[in-house]
């Protein structure tokens, strides 16, 4: 993509506000339990669970389901240690068993999946919607009070993706200026917009900011956070960008990005054909 030419134009900003969370279809890979080194813990868990009576097991499982649902409303990853501290307490040794049961109920009744985050966020969980509501008009079925914030988030994710999955902060802020968003200015909808982008979205796991120290001066780079990777897909973001172009563009016309989409879907053969 030619440098400096960004996809989203000011007059289309309004459309973006209307596009809501495109929830995950992306369910590849990640499972909530980790196989390696777990057998010791698992033995303990089985023992701990066996010592609980059925009523207690039910109660703890249901409390955990409720806790996960409530905490997820804040959109902040839920830590295993908090689950133990606030819900499981004296039966926290049985964590893997109770957690498994709670996960099953969340899926069966609420249609959400519990996903464990990776790397330095290991031991934290997010809930991801796994209902397939299709590509279009999520607005109709998924009305969201935080409409505008979601719109801004989609803009950020789009910019990062279209720029090759990473964007330097100076470039990011320069672009956002075209939307009337400046890091040191109070925004009438978002308030402290710098805080929203660099703290709230980061804490929620939508955006990751990586400090590159091998340049002088060091720069901060914006990337997709782990929650973003679970709640949306590259294909959806590219489709979103095309929609903003009033469907004048086909996703495959963005050659580089289209290859990226195919690669992210594990379709390496198709990538070679495109090239």
């Amino acid at each position, binding site marked *: 993509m030619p440098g400096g030419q960004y996809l989203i134009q000011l007059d289309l900003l309004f459309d973006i506000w209307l596009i809501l969370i495109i929830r995950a279809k992306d369910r590849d890979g990640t499972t909530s339990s980790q196989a390696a080194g777990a057998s010791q813990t698992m033995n303990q868990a089985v023992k701990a669970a066996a010592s609980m009576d059925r009523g207690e097991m039910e109660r703890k499982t249901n409390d955990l389901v409720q806790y996960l*649902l*409530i*905490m997820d409303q804040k959109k902040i990853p839920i830590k295993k240690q908090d689950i133990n501290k606030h819900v499981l307490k004296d039966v926290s040794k049985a964590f893997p068993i109770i957690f498994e049961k709670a996960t099953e109920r969340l899926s069966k*009744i*609420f249609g959400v999946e519990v996903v464990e985050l990776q790397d330095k966020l290991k031991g934290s969980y997010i809930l991801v919607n796994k209902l397939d*509501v299709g590509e279009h008009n999520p607005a*109709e079925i*998924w009305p969201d009070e935080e409409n505008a914030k979601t719109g801004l988030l989609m803009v950020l994710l789009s910019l990062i993706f279209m720029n090759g999955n990473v964007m330097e902060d100076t470039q990011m802020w320069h672009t956002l200026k075209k939307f009337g968003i400046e890091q040191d200015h109070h925004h009438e909808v978002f308030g402290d917009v710098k805080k929203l982008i660099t703290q709230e979205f980061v804490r929620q796991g939508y955006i990751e900011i990586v400090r590159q120290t091998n340049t002088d001066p060091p720069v901060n780079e914006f990337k997709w956070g782990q929650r973003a990777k679970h709640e949306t897909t590259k294909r959806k973001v590219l489709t979103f960008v095309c929609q903003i172009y009033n469907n004048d563009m086909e996703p495959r016309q963005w050659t580089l990005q289209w290859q990226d989409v195919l690669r992210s879907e594990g379709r390496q053969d198709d990538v070679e054909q495109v090239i």
Partner: protein
Amino acid sequence: MSQMTDSHRLFLQAFMSRGILDAKEVKSLFRTSCEKFKTFIADNEEERRHQLTEFVITINNNIKPFHMEIKKGVSEEDGSNYYGLVNISESSITLLASDFTTNELDLFKKLVESIVDSDTGSVGSTDAINLVETLDKKMTRNDAQELLKKLESNKWIKVMNGQVSLATRAILELEQYIFDMFPAIATRCNMCKKLCLKGQSCDSCPVRLHFHCASKFFSRQEVPKCPASDCKSPWPRALPRKDTDQPISSQTDASSGGTSTQTRKRKAKS
């Protein structure tokens, strides 16, 4: 117990994200949820209503272990129907807790108390903000102002003409909490037996009626009298129009507020 299908799950998720929906929104959500997953939906209006009832019962049976329920409520303003997803555990106020800090929650509790304690079911917004003085931990008036905005946008409170009252969502969610915490000052409507914050009071006895309940009840009487069998005092209040979609006019509000200095004010259980 009937199993949840994807249609049920989508319906439930919308409730989780919105908190409260009016009757019309519920109907259209029901239709969308069924159509999205090719669930059969009846053509006949009557059948469809029956189907919706069954649908909600299935969801409620499944979410009961988590102390949740989709509950029907009636707006105190105009008597229209709402449906809200509520938390039915003893610690009802916990559901709110996720969105708010403990200090904010304390202020909200104080606000609920003074609304319940008022005769109009509302307090002036300045008085509401002044409640910061009663908090153990410090909160600025600015922060209190922001909190009111947040509560309003989450549909927990309503702010109209400088008056703060509890919105239908809060009443649905907190009805039990209010009866538990303020047994001496929380009153039930004599007609529908639900919590009554906004309404009309009898001059001679403790009877209270919602505006919409009063208009329904008195529409059958030529000379309005208090419904309590041992009272039957005349009911000299302006009656709201029946089945109106408009909020009750502020004039009616004021006239019922006129009975203010009654013996209803007592101290809450602390």
